[in-house]
């Protein structure tokens, strides 16, 4: 982790949301999927929301991944995501149910097979 700060963060998490931790959208879970809108962010978007918009960059991430990338607690990113969704800059999707995910074992075998093909 090259970019990880080692010391105490200078900017506390509450500043990113203006001290708010209660999201407008309470359906958001840790594994909810956030899909960023395409195009540029509107001017005057608060810095933290802008950062979330940028980190999504038109693709999809789970809430908790976005939180890790932004180095913010999940609670703060949830607020940011709800705000961006309200502005129509991010679309939200419920997490993929556990049962619908392929077994990790199978994925690992496929990966091993593909790696074997390459060599």
């Amino acid at each position: 982790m090259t970019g990880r700060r080692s010391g105490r963060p200078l900017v506390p998490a509450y500043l990113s949301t203006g001290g708010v931790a209660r999201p407008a959208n309470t359906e958001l879970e840790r594994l909810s999927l956030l899909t960023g809108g395409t195009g540029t962010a509107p001017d005057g978007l608060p810095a933290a929301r802008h950062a979330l918009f940028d980190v999504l960059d038109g693709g999809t991430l789970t809430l908790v991944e976005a939180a890790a990338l932004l180095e913010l607690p999940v609670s703060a990113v949830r607020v940011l995501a709800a705000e961006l969704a309200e502005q129509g800059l991010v679309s939200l999707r419920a997490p993929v149910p556990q049962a619908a995910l392929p077994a990790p074992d199978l994925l690992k075998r496929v990966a091993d097979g593909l790696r074997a093909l390459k060599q």
Partner: protein
Amino acid sequence: MIEITVLAASGLAGGTLLALALAGGLLRSHRHRSRLHDEIADLRDRLDNERSKAARASDAVTAEIAHLAEKRIPAVATRAAHPHVQVPGPLSVEFARTGPGAALDVVIDGLLTVMKQERKRVDAAARAGMRGTTREIQAGLYRLQDVLRGLQQQYDEPELAQTLFELDHENEQSLRRAQVAAVVCGAWVGLAREESHLVDAVTGGQSRLVGYHRVRINNHLEPGTALVSHAVEPVAIIVAELLDNALRHSSRDTDVTVNLERAHHGVAVTIDDAGVGMSADERGYAQRMVASSEPILLSDLGDPPRMGLAAIGQLTRQFDLSVDLSTPSPYGGVRAVLLVSNHLLSHVDPVRRPPAAAAPRSTRLVGTPDQPAKAETNGKLPVRTAAASRALRANARRTAPPTTPDTTAHPNSPHTDSTYPDHMPDGVAETDTDPDIEPGDEILPQRRRRRIRPGAEASALAARPSVPEQAQPPARTPEHSAAALGALQTGTAAARSTADPEGNDPR
């Protein structure tokens, strides 16, 4: 018979002569006596005169001493704390010119010297006591902060998170007060930070205040403008105190504007408020506090003590920063300008270590100025320049763990990141067919949160096929190490020679 007559006559004559002679002597002595009498009376008069004069003089001296004790000395003592108090002179003007008058002036001078020394001693004792206490409090608050931040990461239930945010903010405020008191008492700032973005230090300072919502930060600095490690915390404290001053003296519905701009000698942090402003006296006092070279005494700070400006003064002296409060703001309030000179600035790679998410973005573009235009025209997808930093960092992180299977094909080392703008060839960007799979890349398919700029990836690959996959720390040249150690040494020496050493002894 004749003999008897002769004898009688001669005897008579002799007697007469004797009587005459005696009468003459008697007369003379009588005259002498009366003269002496006169003289004595005269002397007595003069003596009485002198006596009464002496008594008057001694009365005057006594009165002067009483005056000294009752009026002048208390006035001197009061004047030490309130310089506008006038010390009265002696009762009579002539007295000052006499010997005892001069002696009394010497007494006053001696008293002043002793009082100054005593005041310094008492103040130093008070500072030492407070320093010890605030240091303990500060350490305790940092531990509390660690716990609170840990809890914030761990629990995301909204109600709990809200409480944790509020507690964290309260804690920041207490921390700020403890830290400022410690700094005023001559202690070290209490926290060693690593090299950080200047905007992070300013935003960090903002977060320590009650009215942080009202602060607008405009960052016009080049991305990556950073502070050397020992200047980070002082700048955050100074900005917090200046902002606190601005927020306190302006109405709740106005904003406080912070502008970060590059100046020739460094970076200027300008803080403007639209408040009531300061009178010339207040401005003079404030300017004296922040910029004078005199050491600050606790007893000068008033009651309740105004610590903020004193702390700024202490820090500007110690860290060679400069703060100016002498100009009024165009918004009508106060304009405070903090100048961070070049030797306290450094550079942090904004791609590898971007500023905090809540820190305002730079109004300048990342990388080369023409990069966004290129990206817009050449790639099918518009590339947001601001996104590049975070995205690339994220990329580097994902591929950083050595156990990840796809790292072999992902040379997202810092080299690639930093050379990214150079590897934005004009033609390659058009191969953006599948956003999820990198074209021409020999990696396993993986879920991506975003479209990878294929040009960058592919050409980076082609350019450096042998770059090791793990993110490497930048190579450190001997010159770098020498420069860093040299800077450390000169910095330490400079601080030792200028700073008040009392805070640094481990007592």
